[in-house]
């Protein structure tokens, strides 16, 4: 009789007390963990989200992480401009030397500087990478390139405005003949920069 009651009570304990005991601290633990700083997004999630939608907001914020890119921005728009510039240089360089003209000289100066600036920018980005030379030096190299390109453009336009111009100067240099053999100065077109 006593044994029967003990067994019955034991079974009641197992059925009633044990689950209550396990579940109650469990829910406390859940509350404690969620309110602690273990979940960094919980604070923002709590502040600026509704109950249902909020669960997914920190998720999507994490999954769409910014990707590290070598090139900044979208290069697909600049690319056709670069190609058009290259094609224009195929015409400009011979033309500016064949028939020196103020407008051609300045067009050549702008096109050449833009062309070499983009080319050297690719060179700097390829070789002066932050992982190789450090963040500071990589940025400094790019900054220096901008300074050099701007100064060169200014210098070339200054030269075109105040002095002979690019095409005429190339012709003048090409007309110089050395002492070894005598040649007549040829003034036909050439495509030297």
């Amino acid at each position, binding site marked *: 009789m006593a044994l029967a009651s003990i067994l019955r009570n034991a079974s009641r304990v197992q059925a009633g007390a044990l689950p209550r*005991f396990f579940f109650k601290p469990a829910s406390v633990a859940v509350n404690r963990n969620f309110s602690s700083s273990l979940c960094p997004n919980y604070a923002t999630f709590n502040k600026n989200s509704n109950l249902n939608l909020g669960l997914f907001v920190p998720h999507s914020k994490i999954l769409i992480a910014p990707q590290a890119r070598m090139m900044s921005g979208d290069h697909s728009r600049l690319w056709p401009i670069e190609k058009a510039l290259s094609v224009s240089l195929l015409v400009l360089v011979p033309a500016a030397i064949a028939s020196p003209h103020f407008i051609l000289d300045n067009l050549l100066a702008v096109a050449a500087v833009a062309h070499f600036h983009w080319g050297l920018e690719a060179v700097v980005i390829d070789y002066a990478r932050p992982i190789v030379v450090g963040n500071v030096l990589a940025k400094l190299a790019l900054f220096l390139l901008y300074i050099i390109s701007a100064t060169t453009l200014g210098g070339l336009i200054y030269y075109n405005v105040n002095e002979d111009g690019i095409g005429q100067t190339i012709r003048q240099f090409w007309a110089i003949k050395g002492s070894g053999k005598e040649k007549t100065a040829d003034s036909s077109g050439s495509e030297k920069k």
Partner: protein
Amino acid sequence: MATFFRLGSRQVLNHFLRNEKVGMLSLVRPVTLKAQPACPPKEMGHDERNMKLGRPQSPHLTIYAPQLTSMLSISHRATGMILAGYTIMWGLGAVVLPDSISCYLEDLAAANVSSILLCGTKFMLAFPMTYHFWNGIRHLMWDMGLFLTLKEVYATGYVMLILALGSAIALVSM
């Protein structure tokens, strides 16, 4: 009697199991499984990962046999850099030099230096230009989707080399 035993055993069992200090269940640690947002893997760049693994840089230049394709490609960049250097020297020279460049050219003409030196200088100026010019056309053709088979890449490469050298020599001898 039965009620007594029932009450007593319940208290004993409760004490035995649920007492905070001596109860058996105080030894059981509650474990919670908690859903957490997935952490994205650590962002590691291509170079960073390869450096960490000790891999050589690709292309592995010290073991790679030089090929026409790669050599023409890198020399396109090299000639472009040379031409950029000439242009930068010109632009900065126009700003920095005390006299105009044509004055120096007149001095050079008056100095009557040897023609070999002059021709060498002209070739150094002309060849990067012609090379970059003709190979640039080759690159623009590729950009338009032309001559992209390996055979055509080699063929245009040889044609470009001949054109570049020939036009440079022609320019120098002008």
